[in-house]
């Protein structure tokens, strides 16, 4: 595939790459469709990640490694021992300390030129709009549906893309929401599933797999390379290594997106 939307216009306004950038990102710039333009798009981009747990922490780590310019992290509270089986940005010696401060330190260890903005709070109806306004792309990795629905309303309102990723036990699911084009989260389920519980069975390898895939969706959204999961949902079961790409559709009566973006 050729570079997405090539031309001078795309390069205008994008930050230049310096020698260190080229040294760090050289091998990924060889990837078809990335090149100079793709790397500059990554450098110019800002990404909001809701929670830096097993999924979100992996998303953040991969995007920091890929050279995304700015990452905004929202996650309340201190590290607990029970986080350590999956939350790879957290460390044993920092149990009891802030999750987002620890995540920021780990990300800067990997990429000291990354800009990291942190919020020691979880996404809610009160802060979702302000948080979303700070980013080009949103990644939703929260364990509570209330947080996911709040974020969904904010991205629909602001017309911003959101990678929606989640896991449960050995399963993962992933889709990319483009407001007005694809189903929003509320199109799929207007209410929280009755059986969902805050504490869920989780292996770090499952969460990390979903996180890596979500990071790839973000990279595709930013660079224009490849094909995102817009309009489809990837459902995977890592206990059986089965993967299904399912077609999903907008709900013309969706209370969140249908009025702002009629079907």
């Amino acid at each position, binding site marked *: 595939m050729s570079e997405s939307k090539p031309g001078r216009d795309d390069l205008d306004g994008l930050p230049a790459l310096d020698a260190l950038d080229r040294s760090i990102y050289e091998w990924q710039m060889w990837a078809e469709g990335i090149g100079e333009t793709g790397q500059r798009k990554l450098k110019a981009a800002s990404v909001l990640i809701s929670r830096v747990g097993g999924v979100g922490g992996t998303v953040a780590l991969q995007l920091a490694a890929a050279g995304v310019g700015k990452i905004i992290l929202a996650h309340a509270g201190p590290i607990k021992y029970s986080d350590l089986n999956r939350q790879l940005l957290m460390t044993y010696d920092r149990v009891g300390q802030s999750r987002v401060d620890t995540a920021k330190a780990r990300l800067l260890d990997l990429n000291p030129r990354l800009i990291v903005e942190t919020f020691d709070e979880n996404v809610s109806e009160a802060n979702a709009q302000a948080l979303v306004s700070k980013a080009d792309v949103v990644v939703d990795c929260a364990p509570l549906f209330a947080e996911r629905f709040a974020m969904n309303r904010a991205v629909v309102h602001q017309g911003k893309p959101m990678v929606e990723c*989640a896991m449960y036990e050995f399963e993962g*699911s992933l889709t990319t929401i483009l407001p007005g084009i694809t189903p929003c989260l509320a199109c799929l389920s207007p209410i929280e599933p009755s*059986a969902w519980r805050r504490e869920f069975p989780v292996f770090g390898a499952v*969460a990390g797999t979903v996180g890596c895939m979500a990071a790839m969706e973000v990279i595709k959204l930013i660079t224009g390379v490849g094909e995102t999961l817009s309009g489809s949902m990837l459902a995977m079961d890592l206990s059986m290594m089965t993967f299904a790409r399912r*077609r999903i559709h907008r709900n013309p009566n969706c209370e969140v997106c249908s009025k702002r973006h009629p079907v």
Partner: protein
Amino acid sequence: MLVHVRFDSQVRRLAGCNRISVDVEPSATLQQIVERVAEVGTDQLRTALLDDQQSLRSSILVFLNDDLVSKEQLLVLHDGSELTLTTLISGG
């Protein structure tokens, strides 16, 4: 006509199995198929699928051969069609 019903995520845990097959009329509606599944499934599965009015819950996602179908949609079923019943998940 035999329709295969597959369970994913928490629905699978409540069903206690990965899939079942139910015998339905070719003209069966989604509601009728789900009621049939609830009849042969566990009590937990019935509660997860059907609300107090015995209607399919809006939080249940239904895919017919990997294509999301709405609750009101007329289904085009064939012998061996596969329905998947699942929900959104939220683990992060």
